[in-house]
């Protein structure tokens, strides 16, 4: 076996890579399952959701990597290692690789478990859309290398947690402060456009920039390999390292701004050909739309006895309430999309469909909040009678349907079994979507009698 691989295997067996694996896997699993309603049954939603968690995973990984970087100094082995033949890079590369592998493995384990639950519910479906998750690998590599480099250069124990906080701020501030720079240091946080971040050169430039900065810091910190670097050399190294860190955001912002001027590379768009406004939809959004409209047809058939639903092909019309939106309507289903002209040609992004109840119902003022089924998993939950109970407790009924005997209903709801509560919730939901107040009132027959 190659010596480097043997050294890597040795590092993988150490406590910190194991800890990294467990922490990342557990954190991801908790985050994913706590938001299960948002990705349940959808591969691309899982991809988006899991990438968004980089805002937490990246700081954790950087913290652990910084701790690993300080190991040489903590264990006082610098003197011994300096006397050996191998380059610092050879030694450090095994340490970095061990953390990277552990982090990615932990990440993928949580994703795989979520994937299994999707397959059990909905089959393989659009599993190909989950390829975007692979973009996490270079992101984690960049943050591990950066954390390790800083931990090596500044090997004090306090540096590791500070590294985590700094990483969180570097990612979080641009995210919350502006829509324009989420790809800058987020590296995979995608905001509204799930496709663009991992296809844009900005992403790869920021990854390459972070990695380059990290490798520069590593090279500077490896000056310890030389016999007793002079004070001038040490000061120069520290100043250069500090400058590299300080200049990172500026450098990457400039690079991102410069590269944002060009179009994305070969986006797999599908465009309409009718006489309305020409719009283009990402291929993966089409898959989502197909899934949504399939569910919507079932909803329509159940509630209104009508058939049909619009397709993405149009005709699209400007939305009367939001000038950035286009909409196409058929039966009681609307498909909506946000217009995006960042890359020149008009595109639809963040496309979704929702079932809208009868206009008469709206005009009667019965729908004043939460009026529709929007996402495909909502429609699927309705069709499968698995609607989450917490969304349909008595007190949360749309105001137009609020029951005058709410207190009594609450008591009966509390006294009911799980099955009775679920039958009640589904009955209320179906009646509300059908805009039938009488049926809403009658749904209480599913509940237990008043105690």
């Amino acid at each position, binding site marked *: 076996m190659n*010596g480097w691989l*043997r050294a890597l295997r*040795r590092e993988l*067996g*150490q406590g910190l890579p194991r800890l990294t694996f467990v922490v990342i896997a557990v954190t991801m699993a908790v985050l994913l399952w706590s938001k299960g309603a948002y990705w349940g049954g959808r591969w691309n939603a899982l991809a988006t959701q899991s990438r968004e968690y980089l805002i937490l995973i990246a700081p954790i990984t950087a913290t652990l990597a910084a701790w690993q970087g300080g190991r040489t100094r903590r264990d*006082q082995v610098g*003197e011994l290692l300096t006397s050996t*033949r191998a380059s610092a890079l050879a030694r450090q590369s095994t340490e970095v690789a061990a953390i990277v592998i552990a982090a990615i493995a932990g990440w993928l384990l949580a994703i795989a478990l979520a994937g299994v639950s999707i397959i059990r519910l909905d089959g393989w479906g659009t599993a190909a859309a989950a390829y975007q998750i692979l973009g996490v690998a270079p992101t984690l590599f960049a943050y591990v290398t950066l954390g390790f480099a800083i931990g090596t250069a500044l090997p004090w124990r306090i540096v590791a947690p500070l590294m985590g906080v700094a990483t969180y701020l570097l990612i979080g501030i641009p995210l919350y402060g502006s829509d324009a720079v989420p790809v800058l240091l987020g590296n995979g946080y995608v905001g509204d456009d799930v496709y663009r971040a991992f296809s844009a050169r900005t992403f790869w430039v920021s990854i390459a920039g972070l990695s380059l900065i990290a490798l520069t810091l590593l090279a500077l910190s490896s000056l310890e390999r030389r016999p007793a670097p002079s004070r001038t050399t040490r000061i120069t190294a520290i100043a250069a390292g500090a400058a590299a860190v300080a200049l990172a955001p500026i450098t990457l912002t400039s690079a991102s701004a410069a590269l944002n001027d060009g179009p994305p590379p070969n986006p797999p768009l599908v465009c309409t050909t009718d006489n309305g406004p020409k719009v283009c939809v990402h291929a993966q959004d089409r898959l989502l739309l197909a899934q949504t409209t399939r569910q919507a047809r079932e909803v329509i058939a159940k509630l209104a006895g009508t058939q049909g639903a619009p397709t993405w092909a149009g005709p699209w019309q400007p939305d009367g309430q939001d000038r950035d939106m286009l909409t196409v309507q058929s039966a009681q289903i609307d498909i909506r999309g946000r217009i995006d002209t960042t890359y020149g040609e008009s595109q639809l992004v963040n496309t979704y469909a929702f079932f809208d109840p009868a206009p008469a119902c709206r005009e009667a003022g019965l729908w004043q909040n939460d009026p529709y089924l929007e996402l495909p998993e909502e429609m699927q939950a309705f069709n499968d009678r698995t609607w989450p109970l917490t969304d349909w407790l008595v007190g949360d009924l749309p105001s137009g349907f609020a029951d005058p005997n709410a207190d009594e209903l609450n008591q009966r709801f509390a006294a009911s079994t799980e099955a009775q509560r679920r039958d009640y919730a589904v009955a209320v939901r179906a009646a509300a979507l059908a805009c039938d107040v009488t049926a809403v009132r009658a749904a209480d027959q599913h509940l237990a009698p008043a105690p």
Partner: protein
Amino acid sequence: MISIDSLGVRLGRSEILRDIDLDLPAGVHGLLGPNGAGKTTLIRVLASTLRHDTGSVEVLGRSYAKGEDMRWVRQRLGYLPQAAAFHRGFTAREYVEYIGWLRRMPSSDIPLAADRALSRVDLIERADTKMRKLSGGMQRRAGLAQAIVNDPQVLLLDEPTAGLDPEQRVQFRALLRELGADSCVVISTHLVEDVAHACDTVTLIDGGRIVDRSTPERLAALGADADLPGDSAIERGYTATLRVHR
């Protein structure tokens, strides 16, 4: 094997070593002196971990002035620093194999060499124990094992017997004599007994200078009749030599 000419080392304004001239052939050589004499500094210079300011150092015929020559020497070097130096999460075997890899041994040779080194320091039965779980003496023996894993031509040991019990010291001295048959072994110590029983030559260092080059036998002879503090003749000889040069 080691040739030092007019060596000088400064740390800040302090002159740690000055005018060191030393030629060390194969054999076991002791560096003896009081605390702060400069023994560890000299060992660190020989281990290529500390830069010298004046003079020249040649090890195995290669000068440390050239980077490539220094790396060539590092491959053939064994070094046990004064302070405990190991990754706490490694097992003893992993630690020794790790240093073997860093010394650029052929990877296929490393497992066997590591086991042999651990056997020589009588630690093979604890080879799979984490370093942090070994006693201080065992950690020191694991340190010795890493220093000899590559069968070094030059072996540098800084206070190697610190933490070893009497039986282990005896075994260690036997090992030193065995190693010194083909290699140049340099031991920095303040324990006169180690020098008396293991070394071929003794170099006394005091105040950053070499004050005497001798043999254990000659030191013992100097102390045989001297009325000086010391439990053995060689200790009295050591004290006498230092007093003469102060």
